[in-house]
């Protein structure tokens, strides 16, 4: 019985860990979907918020790499369902996938720094 309770708690904890990723992912999606142009005034606060989550919840590098995997799928989906021509230039506005790619780059950097420290 005790074991069962422990396993449920562990499961709940893991579910909670998953929820920790939702705010940064929503913020990233909000940034790329609702704003035509990227801004450092949004990018860096979101990154700082994510770094805060890493420190606060002691997130491992793999957590960051899972976010990267999610971002990769978003880019890939847009890539295969759109004309290659839209990825030729950022003019007049950068495609959705390009903005995600910048986020992917930044999260990979964060993940590697985390891995280095681990």
């Amino acid at each position: 019985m005790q074991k069962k309770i422990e396993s449920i708690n562990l499961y709940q904890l893991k579910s909670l860990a998953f929820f920790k990723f939702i705010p940064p992912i929503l913020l990233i999606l909000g940034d790329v979907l609702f704003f035509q142009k990227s801004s450092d005034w949004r990018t860096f606060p979101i990154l700082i918020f994510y770094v805060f989550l890493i420190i606060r919840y002691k997130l491992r590098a793999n957590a960051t790499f899972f976010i990267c995997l999610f971002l990769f799928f978003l880019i890939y989906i847009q890539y295969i369902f759109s004309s290659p021509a839209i990825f030729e230039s950022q003019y007049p506005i950068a495609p959705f996938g390009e903005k995600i790619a910048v986020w992917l780059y930044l999260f990979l950097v964060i993940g590697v720094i985390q891995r280095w420290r681990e």
Partner: protein
Amino acid sequence: MNSLKDFFKKHKLAIFIVIILAVIPFFWLRPGELELGGDSSRLYLYDPLSYLKSSSIYSLAPDGLGNLWMNQSMLPFLLMLGFIYFIFHSPYALTILLYSLSLVGGFLFIYLIILEILKNHVKEDKLSYVHAATILGGLFYTFAPSVGQNIHFALIIQNQVFLNPMIFYLTLMFLKSQKSKYLWFMLLTTFIFAPNFSLAVPALFSFYPLAFLFLVLYVTQYLKKSLPWKKLLVGIILFLGIHAFHILPVIVNTFDPSSYYNTRIFNASSIQNEGLNYFNAILHYAMVTKSFFYTYGAPYAQWAIFVGPLCIILGFLLSKAKQKDFTLIAIFFFITTFLESANITHIGIEFYRKLFYIPGFSMFRNFYGQWQWVQTFFYTLLLGYSFFLILSKLKRKISYILLCLIVGSIVVSNWEFISGQIFRQPHRATKDVSTIIEMDPHFEETLSFFRNQPDDGKIFDFPFTEFSYQVIPGLNRGAYIGPSPTSYLTGRRDFSGHQILEPFSDTFIKLIEEKNYVAIKRLFGLLNIKYIFYITDPRAYKEFFPQLPYSVLLKVLPESKSLTDFVGKIKGEKIFEQGSYLVYNSDNDYYLPHFYVPTSIVPYGDKNKSAGENVSFFVDSKEKDPRIGYISNEECVRFYSSSDCRQDKIKINNIPTIGFKRINSTKYKVVISGTNTPFFLIFSDKFHKDWKAFILNSESKKLKVQESYFGGSVQESYHENIFLDSKTFETLGMKSLPESQHFMVNGYANAWHITPKDSGGKNNYEIIIEMSQQRIAYYGLGISAIFLTVFLFWGYKILMDNRKNRPKI
């Protein structure tokens, strides 16, 4: 013998792939087909030794007015190509061999590098995973867009496709083993492929500093080995020594305040205008997506591009903190991705812009083009490592299935390159004119004709392009478009395009529009144009090229017929015809030989100074004798009174008789006779302060005359092309005419004001006209020859030592 067997057994799959890669380029082009055009062209594959003679041994551009240029770095490479050409005698074979070398070299050295990095992580029984990952890495690199997309219209630096991994591998092995043989082979490679190690080439600075930094960190921090400092120092000294023949001229030129390099590197407004503004203009074309997803843009292969980025992210997920080498590769991947894409946050862009204020960084203004090879290299290392991390988690059978699937996706996504379709693209804005050409034998005969002409006159090409290009139609529906083969393959200067004709290009077009044929003939005379080369084939003009590269000429001569009519108005007598290739003399009444003494001086002011200088001073001239020296009013008052300079012309009497002979394109001998008054000597090559005139003390000897002009007052001798002989340094230590007597004439040419005092009162004497920058090239060659000898002896010693140390059986 057994070790060789073991090697083949271990690497059999890699060897099989190497053979396939060597064969693939034979399917790209059919025998007789060539792909030579583009910005820097590959005319050296067509005729390496002619290209070498015209463009690489002298410090002057082979075309146009003869700008100063430094192309000595091509020498060893062209000699090697010349040797291969001597064996096969086929530009086709040479082209295919170079393509094969790129593919095989790129694959092989990436394979070896990844193997060298990964074998630290596994035991013998798991080496098959490493081999699988290295093969995938090698294939990914070999077929990557930075390799394939640039092979079409390839620049000379395209050789970096295999040179970057090759030098990286040899350096890695040298730093790991500290064996001199690796250093020696590395230096030998840099010497043969010296164009990639020229200081004027951004590729040198984009790859090697980062690669060496990576290797130093890898060896010292990861492998915990010390660096062989003494051997490294020897290597650096030898490198500088054997490369002195091209490094020295570039360095001297860079520190010359009037040079183009100096302006590009140190001039703040040039950094802003030609560097930063260019960067800003192309910034929106750079995409981070392109740095992650490698694609040739073929719609059928869009789905297959996921392999690279997905495997890298999975690699990150599977990596362990202790795998510090993986993290190190990742850091270099991030640095190069940032440099290639530039568009990572606004702070990142601002930081990038600041980098342009580092002297020389503006060479990376076309940042995507310059960093793509480096990014691909580190991307591949990271990917190869990731493949290994993924495959080693799987059972052997599953890993082999995955290996096949990944190879399949690499082949599909890069099929456009592998199949050679990338070459079968039409020229931009043309009517499906292929970039692949089957050379017309008539054109080859025309080149021979030009080579055999004994005089020194220049050529004007029609149709006249808007860049510095020439268009040569092929036997097929293809055309060569690139730097002029007429000059690069004959050693004879020509004017093939708008840029080459600067500063007279706009005036020339205006004169065509105004139908001022006399003024055009006068211009041709001033430019020393003796031949008009006209390709009458309509496929060389509007029929195939409704826009580029004739947008400018088509505005004034919109049809092939109007072009033919125009040429008919300015030509002289026809002297050559083969197929659609015609050569005419220019109008003899206006022709001015390479050297002449003006009979009148026409001062000119600021009239028509819309573009910053007056370049239409010759248009309204009524003088019948074309021997005129047009000099600006500012120059005129240095030699004549202000009232003289206000006249329409100043007549010069008692001019001497001159004879001239070319020793080589940087040195001429002029024999002056019958002079006792001051005169001007005009030399129709682009003005440069380093053209020097030396009056010889020795008795003047009569030159053998091959052609006389103006009743014998200008005599042209038989020309030579002597690169080195006992008289090469005859002017060393001699005093040249002072720079105050050297000035610009006719809007571009050199002139010297020579007085009886300069010749010590002699009436007959010789003058040597010499481009003094060529001396630097000679010094560089001398230094390189000495170091090369030392280097070869060192190689011999290494070989002997290796033989001694080899265990006896």
